[in-house]
């Protein structure tokens, strides 16, 4: 196996310097090393989107990125969206629209919504559906999630 590598990267604005096995996934680093368990593991193979985080501003599956690819990376997880006690407007819209049932997919869903709205602040309904097409939800039937993202876009 490989020697450990010294890795410098930023998570939710905090600089990290950690020695890691280069084959460790970003998901394992977040959950097991940094104890940021808001990012969920679903399939572990890029199909479900539960582990979606922002990597240099873009939505990615944390299960399909490894440590060796993270030098100088900037990562934002669900824990990094709010400011102190105040939750992010997208999180607020999800609560107000009742878009959360079991909640397991929601951190990933919200990170995909964040990436979408950062790039396209006023998406159409089709664009919202396409923007969250990499995130599976088995409870809501998606319509309230789409409404919540529409609401968040309107209130920006």
């Amino acid at each position, binding site marked *: *196996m*490989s020697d450990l*590598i010294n890795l410098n990267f930023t998570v939710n604005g905090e600089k990290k310097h950690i020695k890691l*096995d*280069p*084959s*460790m*996934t970003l998901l*394992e680093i977040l959950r097991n090393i940094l104890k940021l368990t808001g990012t969920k*593991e679903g*399939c*572990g*193979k*890029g*199909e479900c*989107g539960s582990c*979606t985080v922002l*990597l240099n501003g*873009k*939505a*990615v*599956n944390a*299960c*399909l*990125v*490894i440590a*060796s*690819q993270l*030098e100088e990376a900037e990562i934002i997880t669900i824990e990094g969206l709010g400011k102190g006690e105040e939750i992010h407007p997208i999180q607020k819209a999800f609560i107000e629209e009742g878009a959360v049932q079991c909640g397991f997919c929601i951190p990933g869903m919200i990170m*995909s919504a964040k*990436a*979408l709205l950062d790039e396209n602040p006023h998406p159409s309904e089709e664009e919202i559906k*396409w*923007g969250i*097409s*990499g*995130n599976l939800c088995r409870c809501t039937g998606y319509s309230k999630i789409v409404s919540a993202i529409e609401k968040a876009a309107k209130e920006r």
Partner: protein
Amino acid sequence: MRVRRFSVIRIRSLEHLFDLAEKGMTNPYFLAGGTDLLIKIKDDLLIPPFTVLDISGLQELRSIHFEQDYVRIGSLVTHGEIEKHPELRLLFPSLTDACHGVGSPQIRNRATIGGNIGNASPAADSIPPLYVYGAELHLVNSKGERWVKIEDFFTGPGKTIRNPVEIIKEIRIPAEKRDYGTYLRLGQRKALAISKISLALAGKKKNGSMEDVKIALGAVGPTVIMAVETSLYLRGKELSSEVIKEAGNIIEKEAEPITDLRSSKEYRKKMCSTLLVKALTNWKQVA
């Protein structure tokens, strides 16, 4: 999911890669976007010992250059970058459409065009458009370099003429403007589905007749194939309903798909025809 630890080398430069190659390595695999390779590792499809060469940090393979005769796309350019590139859309709309439909936003943000080519799936979405636009691959290793036409690169499902430590450095496509280009695919659903069948088409017209129409089919054989007979039939003809219908019949005879877990041979043959009729009808409508 418990992930087995494996050996990874971060490649700092092409020289670094060539030095390592000269020393020799056990079963090297390139890691570009990682969206295919990491799944193979998780599924235990790579037999240890193997070494993962992480080339994702090679900035020189990340750019797109527009030149007089060619557009050069670095092999680490992602599907998302291609999909959103306005100038590429003008020249190669079939490639734009294909990249737009790959995986999901998360996958498109990581998955690279070089990885899609190197992986050599007959169902890979970016490959049929590269056939119709006449793309060539720049392959480089410690011994030298070579240019290979895309249709000469693949030898079977997952198989290519590439040597293990030979890198796909860039893809160059003749910068030739066509009148129409499209990519149509059928999958179980729109997102995150492997294509059951796909069709790329690019064509030019002269004095109202089709002059040069290239058609490539994905997921119907061991590699992507060109529908040569159908192209020949279309040459010099106007885009009429009769011509479109006949072209659909010809491509159905020309395609020799297989039955696999995603679709039957009979379904694929019919759908080759359906997709071509749809593509030509769309062209007729915009023309």
